[in-house]
């Protein structure tokens, strides 16, 4: 019961944040871009909940609006990596011949720490939102392939799959009707973790100055700019960072909660550990 409550809390946080950032233009009292030199570096107060930055902009408004890029990048990367990883994983798990080639490529891609691969790709492609999405998708989908493949291998020899094969059902039908539905839970769990990791990675890239254009408010860009003022106006650094932590924590809690609800005997089951090991390898 406690677990269910936790999933619900996590989901509500994410929904609230999404709605808040989409509708920000309607309900924010001050425009996030509004510059007021007289109100520079003010500490948090009733008017400015998160204080103001070095241009006199409202840090709260900026933090809310910055969620757009972070959530868009995270969500898109999670969806794309999940689709690519699922397709390659299903093929690798189902066809022995393709397995060898696909897995060697995946092993090669996993030889780079994911942030490093993303950095290298962004260095080559340039730092637009689209390119960051491409770079992060490329860094995160190999893990999904591995997880889907091992899940497929586990059920490949199960009787109903064998039965479907021998009764002459075509491969695409077996895969989509019998294999895919049975490997869906690890896919959803891993997709949630990729969402979380992509948000962290996007923030890191922006922070390192190789991410989204500095004029676009993102949590990473805000933190990058706030660095010089950290000792005199720590609130500019604290709140965007907290926004990242809350969002990523909600996603991680959701992923962890989903894993437990899909797998009630998780503690005794080896599967859980394997998922964790694989999630870990991704990082």
């Amino acid at each position, binding site marked *: 019961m406690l677990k269910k409550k936790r999933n619900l809390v996590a989901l509500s946080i994410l929904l609230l944040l999404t709605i808040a950032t989409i509708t920000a233009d309607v309900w924010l009292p001050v425009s996030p871009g509004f510059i007021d030199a007289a109100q520079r570096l003010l500490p948090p107060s009733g008017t400015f909940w998160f204080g103001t930055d070095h241009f006199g902009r409202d840090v709260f408004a900026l933090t809310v609006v910055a969620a757009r890029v972070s959530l868009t990048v995270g969500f898109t990367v999670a969806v794309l990596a999940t689709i690519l990883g699922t397709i390659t994983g299903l093929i690798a798990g189902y066809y022995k011949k393709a397995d060898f080639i696909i897995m060697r490529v995946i092993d090669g891609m996993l030889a780079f720490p994911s*942030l490093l691969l993303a950095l290298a790709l962004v260095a080559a492609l340039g730092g637009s939102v689209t390119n960051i999405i491409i770079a992060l998708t490329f860094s995160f989908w190999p893990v999904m392939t591995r997880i889907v493949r091992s899940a497929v291998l586990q059920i490949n020899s199960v009787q109903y799959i064998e039965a479907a094969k021998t009764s002459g059902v075509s491969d695409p039908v077996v895969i989509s009707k019998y294999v895919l539905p049975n490997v869906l839970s690890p896919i959803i769990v891993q997709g949630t973790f990729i969402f979380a990791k992509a948000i962290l990675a996007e923030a890191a890239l922006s922070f390192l100055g190789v991410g989204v254009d500095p004029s676009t408010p993102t949590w990473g860009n805000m933190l990058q700019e706030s660095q010089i003022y950290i000792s005199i106006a720590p609130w500019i650094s604290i709140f965007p960072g907290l926004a990242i*932590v809350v969002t*990523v924590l909600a996603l*991680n809690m959701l992923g962890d909660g989903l894993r437990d609800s899909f797998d009630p005997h998780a503690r005794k089951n080896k599967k*859980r550990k394997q998922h964790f090991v694989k999630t870990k390898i991704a*990082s």
Partner: protein
Amino acid sequence: MLQYTIRRLLSIIPVMLVVSIIVFMIVHLTPGNPAYLILGEDSSAEAVQQLEEQLGLDQPIVVQFFDWVTNVFKGDLGESVYSSEPVLSIILDRIGPTFSVMLISMIFTLVIAIPIAIFVVWKRQTVLDPLFISASLLGASIPEFWFAMLLVLGLGVSIPIFPVAGYIPIAEGFLLWLHHLILPAFVLATVEIGLISRMLRDGMLEAVNQDYTKTARAKGIKESVVLMKHVFANALIPTTTVIGVTIAGLLGGTVIIETIFTIPGIGQLLIDSIHRRDYPVIQGVVLFIAVIYVVINLLVDLLYGLLDPRIRYD
């Protein structure tokens, strides 16, 4: 064991092939002419042509790839476009600081994560376990760079115990070296501590209810001894693989940490080179890190095979 070793050694060939293709492609993924990008838009046509020749960009791509791989095997990673020095020597100059941070982080990680995991498993029936799970999830949700900023604010600026920037080579004094590494290594370790203690806990919880553990308890052995001798010892073998994973995490994280703490390691070199569009150095660093990672994983797997004979027959 010999057969396992050979098989494992052979398996790195395709991996390295894919790695080298990816690293090679970094330059060729740039939109437009890489030589223009490096030199800037108002560069003369001769300068561009000269750089193209220097980088071999005027050759067909397959020829370029084989030339590049051949040179890499000879230890020639090309020359920096920025400083004209050989890339390999630039990298070798910078690995000292990076390895130092990683070493101290690794020590932090193991020294903190192992006791935490044992303690949590010992008190597994209490509220400590869900607390621990939440804490490890929280640890995985904090951006390293933000945590570093807060620590610098808290410990470096407000209570100046530890230096917040710079690096002192070990040759200039062990304590000075260590003193400068404490904060960066600690930040780098935090994420790993969360992940590794969680993996250890999961591994130990699996061993807690095994028959051999039950037998040990039935013989009247104290719970603390059972935990250490039977549970922990058996959870330790799979944990060797974790070390390889940790090193990968540290290698990735070091890029961020070196930038924040201004440590002149290969991570900072990479970021600087990205800003300078110094592609040969970018390629060199990325390749270097990938090779280290592959080699470490190879060693870990071989060690694993040595410790646990079952793995060899998989």
